[in-house]
């Protein structure tokens, strides 16, 4: 009997617990490179597109990325075409994907987050009927069972808002509360690790109505040009991701699992199937891959395909593994 990989994230059912981190997979661009099978059979259990903002953003000056030992520092700066284009061009094709989607929004103020959530909700409510899912036995067709909303309150690469909100528990609570009034579906708060105690903004987000937490975004970091000995990236500092941050992220997931009672989407340097198991053991219901998909774009599919066997080998089930690291021997 195969181990069940299906997990529940609020009202959304996922076929397996592996998704992508926002900003690391453009599934439509990927399909142009690898073929339409990527859209017909997405490598992730739920697809998380890049964070959108109310108005278009060009993004930061290049160079935007630099590899460092064990990691990648990026200062991409949320380039996107804004809510209006997203709703017209991207949302319809996202809804045609045969998997749930978790939209990601970023803003510089409470009002922007609220406007984004309202705009997306109104667009979703205007969809006459949710397109049929590939699996007719699946849950109902209400959009809330297949569309979630991630609040990116942790981007280190924007001039205002972003991380400034997520590192302040009061601001976090206020933003989540505003969005909660506009968004009836799954609401996730994406946390920054650039704080002394990540459980403070986490508790604030949950108190304000977040259904789940996403942790962690990147660690604020700096790389110098070896020749000029001046900052390498166009925006000076950036966010560190990749294997270098995995132990740091694990510790955050571990602390969050003890602090809150909502599901956690764990991420931060996940690069192997063992990493996936470790994140689940620390308390992640869902695990997101990010930087590692830059080596292998279909990595999430590979993990999902191997996960059941890895659990069986260890005599574990998915629910048995969740939080295992917290069980006192």
């Amino acid at each position, binding site marked *: 009997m195969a181990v069940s990989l299906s997990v529940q994230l609020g009202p959304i059912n996922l076929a397996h617990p592996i998704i992508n981190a926002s900003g690391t997979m453009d599934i439509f661009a990927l399909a142009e490179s690898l073929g339409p099978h990527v859209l017909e059979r997405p490598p992730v259990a739920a697809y998380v597109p890049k964070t959108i903002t109310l108005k278009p953003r*060009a993004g930061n000056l290049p160079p935007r990325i630099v590899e460092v030992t064990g990691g990648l520092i990026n200062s991409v700066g949320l380039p996107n075409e804004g809510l209006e284009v997203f709703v017209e061009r991207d949302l319809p094709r996202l809804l045609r994907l045969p998997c749930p989607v978790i939209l990601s929004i970023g803003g510089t103020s409470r009002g922007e987050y609220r406007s984004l959530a309202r705009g997306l909700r109104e667009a979703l409510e205007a969809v006459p009927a949710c397109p049929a899912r590939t699996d007719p036995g699946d849950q109902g067709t209400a959009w809330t069972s297949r569309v979630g909303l991630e609040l990116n309150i942790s981007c280190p690469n924007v001039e205002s808002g972003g991380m400034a909100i997520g590192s302040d528990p009061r601001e976090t609570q206020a933003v989540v509360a505003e969005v909660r009034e506009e968004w009836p579906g799954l609401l996730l708060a994406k946390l920054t690790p650039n704080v002394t105690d990540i459980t403070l903004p986490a508790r604030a987000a949950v108190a304000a109505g977040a259904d789940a937490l996403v942790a962690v975004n990147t660690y604020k970091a700096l790389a110098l040009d070896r020749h000029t000995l001046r900052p390498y990236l166009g925006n000076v500092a950036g966010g560190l991701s990749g294997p270098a941050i995995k132990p740091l992220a694990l510790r955050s997931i571990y602390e969050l699992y003890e602090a809150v009672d909502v599901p956690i989407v764990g991420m931060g340097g996940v690069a192997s199937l063992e990493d996936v198991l470790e994140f689940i053991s620390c308390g992640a219901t869902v695990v997101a891959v990010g930087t590692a998909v830059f080596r292998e774009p279909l990595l999430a599919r590979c993990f999902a395909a191997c996960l059941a066997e890895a659990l069986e080998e260890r005599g574990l089930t998915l629910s048995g593994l969740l939080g295992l690291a917290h069980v006192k021997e």
Partner: protein
Amino acid sequence: MPTQPDDEAVCSGETAGSPEPRGARILGHVARSEVLGPFTWLTVTAPGWQEASAGQFALVQWEKSRTLLPRALSVAAQGENEVSFLIAPVGQATRELCGLREGDRVWILGPLGRGFDLPALVGEGRRTVVVAGGVGVAPFSLLLTALRDKMCSSSGSLSAGRLRPSLSPGFGVLVLLGFRDSLQLAGAEPVFRVAADLREAGFPCRVEVVTEDGSQSPAAKVTDLLGRHLLPGDRLAVCGPWEMARAVQHLCLGVEDVRAWYSLEANMACGVGSCHGCAVPLADGSFARVCHEGPVFAGEDIFGG
């Protein structure tokens, strides 16, 4: 004692006994590695390699690399289940690739990106001018091979190939290569070979080379050569350092009816349009992804009209 975390990547893309799970990468192995001066010509047996168009690239990484990410390399030549790259050892990842031996395993993802628009480069009555600086010569052996294949009728062999009427031999191809020194000249070997093939097929293809240290001829830059040769109506394919590209575009603006396409380089992470890490500014103030909208861009898009 607790088990130490295992660094081995789980997804090899070739799990024993099962075609699943399949990644998108190919795990190839080195068929040949040839030293060309400071560069390495690396030929990899890559089962399932899909034919690249000239100017496309692949993400390449030694299986046991110490780097996190693969590196983007222009496809320099290809065959059935085989692909070659011209590599300059500029950092850890490329030094590793230059040091590989026959049988060493290499991850390859590709072909990726948008290459040169061949019909635009060899339109009727046009002369195609290739301009390359240093390891920027990499994509042009494939470009010349593609031109050769275009020149020759599909029915005949190469030596018996007929020229298509639309490609008048009177215009042909001019290849201008610039290198830092005479050591780097060896990197031009693959281009010399294909150029000879083209001439054998009856198609005019001239290659001129300069070195910046003057070891080959009077010290000059490839843009000095271009300045002497550029004619109205020319169509250019360009690859090299950013300063060279700017200088080429400057020359182009001074001559009537010249268009140029540039293969750009940038720090790249995903290679498939996902991360926006390789973005370059365009003339209209927007950014474009080198990996997805490029790596080949029209000069007017990068530099303005």
